[in-house]
């Protein structure tokens, strides 16, 4: 018998090992028992048992986002697969590489409404980059390697491999990952050099240039961030980033304008609106970024670097499309820039920076300090100050706290910031923190959480306890679904329909029930000590940070408005908040 003959279940483990996978996040069930049996009998791949399959997918995302590697998930058929759908969609929208192995009922039962049968490939087709149903064990090894190739090449994304139980038991021939790519899938990574030259020539004419970067820079890897920094240094161009791209350029960098978009910085949005040349790198003109499309940066010529051709000209017409991996494109642009000894119009650039400084002087993140209650912004500021010298990774849930984290926490490096951008999935941050901590056991991993979001995947605290992952859940507890409440105040006459959580648990007792450490801060004066204490504890912590209940997140571009129509916190008195968005804007999300 040839040595490479083995069962399907053995192949799964062998393929994972050959792909260099060290961690799988999963949950067992009838249709994956043969694979779990193999997991039991080996030590190279560690399995992290989550408490809900959604948790496995977000943990894998956190793992992937913080390491640059592919996240791996293993779930059973039926409910196991359907529970994974949210995380798959999340990974698709944020371009996170993930391979999700799902068990399936035996081949001969497919289509018979068997126990725990669901059409996994049908359900996950629109929420994966690609998916497979393996019908023959002799295809299994190739498909698994192909899945890793597809998940990690081109624009990364989730790939599902659905394996019927009989295929897991059947014996077949294993093939290694060598030379396995995909028959035809070959995303373009190197740009057309004419496009590169056109881009450099266009930038050379700029008087008011801006770099608008996104998650694609992070996905492209550390080299891309390095080259981005070189490019900014070399050209002196101001730079802003989307939520997903924070950390690619350091917040302490002198050309940093801060995040742009709906809750972005005033100076970043104004500069986007008034620029004459925009270089978009690894971002996709999402509606949270552009505001009203027909007023979006009306007088600029636009360069768009993206590995996915379908992102180009999707919502915003660009003048110079560059289909490429960001690192490759930046490398080429820097080379051409140097070869041509391009210099920007220094005087124009100085004037541009002066204008930007004028916008900066608005100090758009200013908020009213308070000695009695902790302002949520203040909490994030203090958290940043007290953790910036640690080896820190931040995840978030979704809502106001997420935006305050993006505004007030300052990221110096890529892969340090994990948040659900495209899908906006409440419940992302806690399991993501589990995944990050698993990948970086010695790091300080903090989920900046909301009181409502965190309850969606709270059960993963149990996972953190089991694997001794000392994650810190820092809840900005405003006792509201703050972001929903803010929109109701802005748009719906302050009728707070179901946005108040009437029966929140006692988070400190909850922490204790899980066997982790519960802490609470209610006054600004006690906050610093409490945060220091949280950092010191080498166990999982749930930190109930009681913040002002009714604070609103500003600045804000109301839906349907342009970048230069931002509202600043100081402009709106509480009683006027309901009037700042017009009827047309109320239609939008």
């Amino acid at each position, binding site marked *: 018998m040839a040595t490479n003959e083995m069962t399907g279940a053995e192949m799964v483990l062998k393929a994972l090992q050959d792909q260099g996978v060290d961690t799988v996040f999963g949950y067992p069930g009838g249709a994956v028992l043969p694979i779990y049996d193999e997991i039991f009998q080996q030590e190279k791949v560690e399995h992290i048992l989550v408490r809900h399959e959604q948790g496995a997918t977000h943990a894998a995302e956190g793992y992937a986002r913080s390491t640059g590697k592919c996240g791996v998930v293993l779930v059973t058929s039926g409910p196991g697969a359907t529970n994974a759908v949210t995380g798959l969609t999340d990974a698709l929208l944020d371009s996170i590489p993930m391979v999700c192995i799902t068990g399936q009922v035996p081949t001969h039962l497919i289509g018979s409404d068997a126990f725990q049968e669901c059409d996994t490939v049908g359900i996950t087709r629109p929420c994966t980059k*690609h998916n497979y149903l393996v*019908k023959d064990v002799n295809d299994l090894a190739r498909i698994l390697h192909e899945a890793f190739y597809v998940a990690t090449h081109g624009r990364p994304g989730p790939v599902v491999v659905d394996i019927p139980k009989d295929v897991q038991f059947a014996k077949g021939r294993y093939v290694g990952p060598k030379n396995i790519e*995909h028959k035809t899938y070959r995303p373009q990574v190197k740009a057309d050099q004419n496009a590169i030259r056109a881009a450099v020539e266009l930038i050379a004419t700029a008087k008011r240039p801006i770099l608008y970067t996104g998650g694609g820079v992070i996905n492209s890897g550390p080299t891309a961030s390095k080259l981005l920094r070189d490019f900014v240094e070399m050209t002196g161009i101001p730079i802003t980033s989307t939520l997903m791209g924070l950390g690619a350029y350091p917040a302490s960098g002198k050309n940093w304008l801060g995040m742009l978009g709906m809750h972005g910085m005033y100076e970043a949005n104004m500069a986007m609106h008034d620029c004459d040349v925009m270089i978009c790198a690894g971002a996709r003109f999402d509606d949270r970024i552009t505001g*009203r499309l027909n007023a979006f940066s009306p*007088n600029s010529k636009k360069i768009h670097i993206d590995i*996915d051709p379908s992102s180009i000209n*999707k919502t915003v017409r660009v003048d110079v499309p560059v289909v490429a991996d960001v690192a490759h494109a930046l490398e080429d642009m820097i080379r051409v820039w140097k070869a041509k000894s391009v210099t920007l119009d220094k005087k124009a650039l100085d004037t541009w920076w002066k204008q930007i400084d004028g916008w900066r002087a608005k100090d758009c993140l200013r908020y009213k300090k308070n000695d009695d209650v902790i302002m949520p912004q203040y909490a994030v500021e203090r958290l940043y100050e007290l953790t910036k010298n640690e080896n820190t990774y931040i995840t978030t849930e979704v809502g106001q706290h997420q935006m305050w984290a993006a505004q007030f926490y300052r990221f110096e490096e890529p892969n340090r910031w994990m948040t659900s951008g495209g899908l906006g999935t409440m419940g992302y941050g806690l399991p993501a923190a589990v995944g990050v901590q698993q990948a970086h056991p010695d790091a300080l991993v903090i989920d900046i959480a909301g009181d409502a979001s965190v309850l969606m995947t709270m059960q993963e605290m149990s996972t953190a306890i089991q694997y001794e992952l000392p994650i810190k859940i820092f809840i900005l507890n405003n006792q509201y679904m703050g972001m929903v409440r803010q929109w109701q105040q802005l748009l719906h006459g302050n009728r707070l329909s179901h946005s108040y959580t009437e029966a929140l648990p006692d988070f400190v007792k909850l922490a204790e029930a899980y066997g982790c450490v519960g802490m609470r801060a209610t006054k600004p004066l006690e906050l610093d000590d409490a945060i220091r204490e949280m950092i010191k504890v080498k166990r999982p912590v749930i930190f109930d940070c009681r913040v002002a209940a009714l604070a609103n997140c500003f600045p804000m571009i109301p839906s349907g408005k342009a970048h230069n129509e931002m509202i600043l916190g100081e402009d709106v008195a509480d009683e006027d908040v309901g009037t700042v968005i017009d009827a047309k804007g109320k239609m*939008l999300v």
Partner: protein
Amino acid sequence: MNAHLQPSGSAYFLDTVKPVAETHALAVIVDNEPGVLARVIGLFSGRGYNIESLTVSETQHEKHVSRITIVTSGTPAVIEQIKNQLGRMVPVHSVADLTVQGNALTRELAMVKVSGTGEKRVEALRLADAFRARVIDAGTSSFIFEITGKTDKVEQFISLMVPLGLVEVARTGVAGITRGADGMKV
């Protein structure tokens, strides 16, 4: 500089004045693997694109490669998006816009059942002859015609058959191919 090219309103506003939609025939070469057609159709339904006609068949058995011809309509920007969205799908080898290439031939086949007697029957046969439709089945009171041609010719023939006793129609949808010596990248 290119504001005039941009769609109006936010991403959420429905345009009241729609730019003129064009009809394009696209040829798509795909791996003939399970679910590939569902993937392509799902793209169209999921993103709100139109499918006016769709044909698919394996064209290279040894390579398990199929060719899909899709007739779709949309603004030039939407057509561009459709091509890019198709092009990035993992099992898609290549996408050609037969309408843009301009020199393409498109054909479809229809089987048209007409029932009637006397004058109407004679008239149906006479028209079939004029349209070069073949009789592929005949009974005392019905015919089945087979007609091949461009969509508008097929349409016209079918509408002429309506008053003459049209019973039912089966159509293949459009298949298309470019003229000249070159073929699509497989």
